[in-house]
Structures are given as structure tokens and as C-alpha cells.
């Protein structure tokens, strides 16, 4: 432990930490461009200059380890003047194109120039100019804006495990890019956009879609795989425009894969279901639920409740699955309950310092395969979806309820089982939804609240980012409506109430608290 003074404040820092890390930890902001907590320190931007007592020259905060008794000043006139100088140098070739730059609003250079810079540059000569460069399917490079902090190079080399970027040419002509301008081929390429402190690397997916200050930022989860990465969903006017990683040391650290980021395209797809469908017609979801409930009640009243099959999904939330199970077991009284689950992945889960490609993306593309096992099975014999379909084909089932899944994707065929009554909920207009006797719309993971249990057994909170299209709602709400119409006196009004019941009923979930859930999530024991 080292004790040092920064701007007159006594702070304690761990040995080996840099002054910059120690300052950031206790909330003192030292301007920095090339420093990134997950990347190796190079000290190339010279933005984090600080004045240390008894040291004649200004030092970079990122590269100076803390020492006991150090007295640091981050705001002295000398420091400020030095930063102004650094900024003036950085701005020599940086174009004044903030109006068209996607980074504007979250650009560190812009912020620092606003804070320290002077409005007029003394540099009279021409700025260097490069055309924009296409770097594969995800990235666009604008060399004009580059400040040579090498964050991108360091990320690819040290974190992603893809040595694609480098510095080439020299001095004033230095460029950052790929060898021979080949495209960047890594499933983590869009992290470069986050890593770049300025707008030199921008995302093709988000390019010109919106401005950072006009968007709302909501912390939620990615549903792309069973890792359960924490993300910020940026939305504007009811549309999610992009996902960026939210820091979670135990799950995804600072990163998010391209696949996960692009799941937002599914949410924004044109074939989203907004109204109920009955054999192809648009109808009122309320009326559709009335009819479905009446039909199901007829089966139950006739003693044929056990001839109803219910298909849940690991794509839904814990709350959805819990109420689907409760609907099947308690209201319909059927044993035929199964859920669609993802592939097994026997690789270790824990985040590590190995290249991202080796551990980050999970084989299991369903967000809560493990959670669904905890909740739907709860110690009861496993129901297999393919088995359920086979039973239905044999005519042992009269009705089938499919929640949030496309059965054709499970079977790989273009047809869904022919039963007397097929009820489906769906986020998109899938085959199952089209072939169902009654289909109601379903909200996607960016449109509903709830909890996900990831592969590791970490329960994390999902937050609604935008309103679902039309009259879509969560599967648990659909289940509640069906049960309510069939005479069950369920009184769930909010997701938190279902979560509370899960905590009370499902073994291992006792500690789960929806409202007070910490940002890193809560661990549960898989049964």
C-alpha cells in the first residue's frame, strides 16, 4: 500500500498501480486518450501529464507507478498549459468535422478540447488528408481523425488475439491500419469503435444512425449467447440503434462480440409481429387470447388437460418460463412440458487473459439454457421438445402451446405438427406463427424486463429499453392472461412479483432479489 497526495487529497493506492489508475479509482479525472484499463500502457498521447513534487519535469500519469509520499498536482497552471499544448499538437491534423463525425458527443478529444483547448489554432498549413477506407463488413477507417494512440493496435494484439493492425509510415505521415489494407476479420472488430477515443474508426452498422447525446442509454443484457454480457442499449424514438458493452469484470469485462451487437437487427427487423394472427389474419390480441383460453378451457373441462403440450424456451426470461410452467402444471394440468435449449459448451466459462476468441463467445446460443433447466424442470423429469413433437405426430396431443419459439428451427422441417389446436407466441412472423391457429405477439429481450441466468449460474437483470411493437408483450404476461381467462386467480402485475415467487419456490434462487440486484448479478446454484 502506498499513500500519496493528489490535488491535496490523501489517497491510498496499491503498489504497482499507476498514478492514473489510483486517481481514477478515487474519482479524480486526469485527461487521457491512449490509456485503457484493459490495455497495456504506452504513454503515447501525453495527455495525462501531471506535476509531481521534486520531479523537475512533468510526468505521464499512466506510466508513473505510485510511490509512498508522492505529492501530485493534476490541475496546476503548468499542467493545464502542457495539456493545452498537447491538444494543439493533436489537433494539427485532426479535422474540424465534428458535425459529421459519429464520435461527436462521446469523443474524448472533443471534450478535452472544449475544456482545455483554444478556439483558434496557430497551425496555418494544410492538414493531411486521406480518403475514408473500408475495413471489412463492420468498420470504416477515417485516417484524418486518427491521433495515433494505438489503442486499436493494442486491443487487437493483446486482447482479441488477432494481430491485424499496425502503425506504418513515419512521422507526420504515420498511419494506423491493416497490412495492405486487408479487411479486419475478427468476431470482435466492433470493439475497435469503442476503443478508439476519437472517430477514426466508426461502425458501419451504426454509422450516421444517431447522435450519442440524443440517445437514451439503458443497461441491460445481451441475449446472443449464454454468457449474458452486460450491454448498454442506446435507443432513440422507440428504436434501439446500437449495443455497446457495459463493464462487468466477471462476465464480459469491457467487451462485446460483433454477433451480440448485431442481435439488435433482429429486434428492429421488418417482420416483427405487432398484432395477433389467426391463420394469417390480423386480430386483436385480447380477442385472440379470449378464443385461445376458451379452447384450452374446453380441453381441460373435458378432462383432456393432459393432452395439451407446452413448449417453453431458453430464449425467454426466467419469469416467462416460470409462469409457462405454472400454466402447464397448475392450470392446464399437463405433464407434457418441454423447452428448447441450446448446445452444450464444455469450455471453461470464467473470463481470463487469454485471447477473446478462445473463451468469450459461447457455443450455447440460448441465453438461459441453465436457468430454464433450473426453473422448468425443478427436479422433475426432463421433457424433450423433439419427444413432444413426436408424441403430437402420433396424435397423443390434441393441442400445443409454443412460447417464443419457431418449431421449424428445432425440427429443421418446414412444417409444424398438425394438432387440433396450435397456439403460438412469436416475436417475428415465423413459420410456426403463420401456421398456428392463434398466434399472439411477443416482446424481445430489449423490450421486456426480467432476469437471465447465464451458464455460470449468474442471475442478472434485463431491463426494458424500448416499447414492444404493436400490442406485443412478454410470454409471462401472455401466460398470465391465458390463466386468468381460464379462471386461475393469478395476480401478477409486475415482473418483480414473478421474480419474488421464483425466489420463494425454485431451489437455489432464494437470494435472488429483482429490485436490489447488484450490477454484477447474483450467483445461484444449479440444481
Amino acid at each position: 500500500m502506498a499513500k500519496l497526495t493528489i490535488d491535496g487529497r490523501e489517497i491510498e493506492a496499491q503498489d504497482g498501480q499507476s498514478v492514473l489508475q489510483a486517481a481514477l479509482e478515487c474519482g479524480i479525472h486526469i485527461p487521457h486518450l491512449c490509456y485503457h484499463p484493459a490495455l497495456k500502457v504506452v504513454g503515447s498521447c501525453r495527455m495525462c501529464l501531471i506535476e509531481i513534487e521534486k520531479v523537475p519535469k512533468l510526468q505521464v500519469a499512466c506510466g508513473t507507478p505510485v510511490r509512498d509520499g508522492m505529492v501530485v498536482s493534476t490541475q496546476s497552471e503548468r499542467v493545464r498549459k502542457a495539456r493545452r499544448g498537447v491538444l494543439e499538437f493533436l489537433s494539427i491534423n485532426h479535422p474540424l468535422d465534428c458535425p459529421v463525425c459519429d464520435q461527436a458527443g462521446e469523443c474524448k478529444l472533443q471534450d478535452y478540447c472544449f475544456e482545455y483547448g483554444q478556439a483558434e489554432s496557430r497551425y496555418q498549413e494544410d492538414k493531411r488528408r486521406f480518403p475514408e477506407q473500408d475495413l471489412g463488413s463492420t468498420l470504416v477507417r477515417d485516417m484524418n481523425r486518427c491521433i495515433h494512440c494505438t489503442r486499436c493496435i493494442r486491443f487487437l494484439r493483446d486482447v482479441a488475439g488477432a494481430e491485424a493492425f499496425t502503425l506504418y509510415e513515419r512521422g507526420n505521415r504515420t498511419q494506423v491500419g491493416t497490412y495492405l489494407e486487408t479487411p479486419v476479420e475478427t468476431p470482435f472488430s466492433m470493439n475497435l469503435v469503442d476503443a478508439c477515443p476519437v472517430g477514426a474508426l466508426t461502425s458501419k452498422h451504426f454509422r450516421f444512425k444517431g447522435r450519442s447525446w440524443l440517445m437514451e442509454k439503458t443497461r441491460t443484457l445481451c441475449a446472443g449467447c449464454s454468457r449474458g454480457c452486460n450491454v448498454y442499449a442506446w435507443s432513440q424514438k422507440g428504436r434501439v440503434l446500437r449495443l455497446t458493452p457495459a463493464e462487468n469484470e466477471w462476465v464480459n469485462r469491457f467487451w462485446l462480440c460483433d454477433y451480440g451487437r448485431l442481435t439488435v437487427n433482429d429486434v428492429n427487423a421488418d417482420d416483427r409481429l405487432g398484432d395477433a394472427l389467426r391463420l394469417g389474419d390480423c386480430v386483436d390480441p385480447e380477442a385472440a387470447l379470449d378464443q385461445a383460453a376458451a379452447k384450452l378451457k374446453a380441453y381441460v373441462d373435458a378432462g383432456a388437460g393432459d393432452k395439451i403440450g407446452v413448449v417453453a424456451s431458453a430464449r425467454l426470461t426466467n419469469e416467462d418460463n416460470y409462469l409457462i410452467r405454472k400454466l402447464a402444471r397448475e392450470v392446464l394440468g399437463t405433464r407434457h412440458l418441454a423447452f428448447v435449449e441450446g448446445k452444450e459448451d464444455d469450455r471453461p466459462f470464467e473470463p481470463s487473459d487469454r485471447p477473446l476468441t478462445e473463451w468469450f463467445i459461447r457455443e450455447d446460443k440460448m441465453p438461459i439454457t441453465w436457468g430454464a433447466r433450473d426453473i422448468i424442470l425443478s427436479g422433475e423429469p426432463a421433457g424433450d421438445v423433439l419427444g413432444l413433437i413426436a408424441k403430437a405426430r402420433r396424435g397423443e396431443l390434441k393441442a400445443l402451446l409454443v412460447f417464443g419459439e419457431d418449431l421449424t428451427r428445432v425440427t429443421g422441417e418446414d412444417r409444424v405438427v398438425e394438432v387440433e389446436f396450435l397456439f403460438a407466441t412469436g416475436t417475428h412472423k415465423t413459420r410456426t406463427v403463420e401456421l398456428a391457429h392463434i398466434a399472439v405477439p411477443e416482446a424481445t429481450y430489449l423490450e421486456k424486463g426480467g432476469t437471465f441466468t447465464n451458464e455460470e449460474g449468474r442471475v442478472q437483470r434485463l431491463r426494458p429499453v424500448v416499447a414492444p411493437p404493436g400490442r406485443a408483450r412478454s410470454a409471462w404476461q401472455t401466460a398470465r392472461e391465458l390463466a386468468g381467462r381460464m379462471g386461475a386467480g393469478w395476480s401478477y402485475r409486475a415482473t418483480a412479483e414473478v421474480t419474488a415467487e421464483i425466489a420463494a419456490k425454485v431451489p437455489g434462487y432464494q437470494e435472488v432479489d429483482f429490485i436490489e440486484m447488484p450490477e454484477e448479478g447474483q450467483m445461484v446454484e444449479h440444481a
Partner: protein
Amino acid sequence: MGVKQIHRPPQNAWERLYVFEIARGLGITLKHALLSWFKPGHMPTYEYPEVKRPLAERFRGRHRIRKREDGSPLCVACYCCQTVCPPQCIDITAEESDDPAVMKRPREFKINLLRCIFCGMCVEACPRDAIYMSHDYELADRTREQLQLGLDDLLENQDNDEGEG
């Protein structure tokens, strides 16, 4: 609170008779009536639809967007006007421009004139001086939809008048 005493000038007997003072008043109004009658050109009014009042240089009318030499909008869709607009009546959708030098251009630029308060903040905010407020103030229309200006509406009639820039 103090009471403000108003001292009216005392009236003399002649004035208190009123009749002659009333006649004097009638004379004044008659003078104006006759002036209006025989010299209608000297009335301080404007026959509005045909004759228009000269506007102040800084008059803020309907918005327009300046064009580049090739006719494309000068706007680069930076959203500054949309951000600064107090009643939030501007709605921009950006897109990639064909011209690599321009990079970004508005695909849609909607101004809801029904919401607009003509404060001119968008003009202040524009980094390209692309948006300006013309002297066009006859903005009545038959439907609400016709008062939602689109990019085409904002680009037309450029030469009509130049407002604040």
C-alpha cells in the same frame, strides 16, 4: 402599498358645461374622418394581401436550407438544430452521402411548423450555416400534414428571400 393620488386638472365653467367640449371632440374626429375620406392614400394601414408590410432584416419566418452549388443541401445532418430546438420540432434522419467529401447528408429533414416557435435557435446552432429563417410568414394551410416541412420544402424557393443567416 402607497396610494397614488391622481390630480386631475380643475375644470372651468366652460369645460364643465361639456356641450362645447364635446363639440370640440366631435370636430377632432370629424377631421380624421374627412382626412381618411379624401386622402385614403395617407392612412397608416396596409391593404394586407396585396400590399405587404416591409419586414425587419432580422424577421424570423419559415425555415429554409441552403444548397450547395450542385443543388444538394448544405446540411450535413449533425443534429445540432434538432438538439437545441426548444419545442423539439426538428426531426432529422441522416444517411451516407454519395460525395465522399461531404460524407453525411440528411435523408429526411422534417420541421413541424405547428410546433415551431420561430426562436431561431436552430440557425444559431447550425455549424454550416445551412439552415436559415426566411421572410416567408404566410404559413396557413388546410391540413396539419401540409405544415410538416420536409427536405424538399426546405430547399425550394431559395431565391425568394434571404433571411437571417
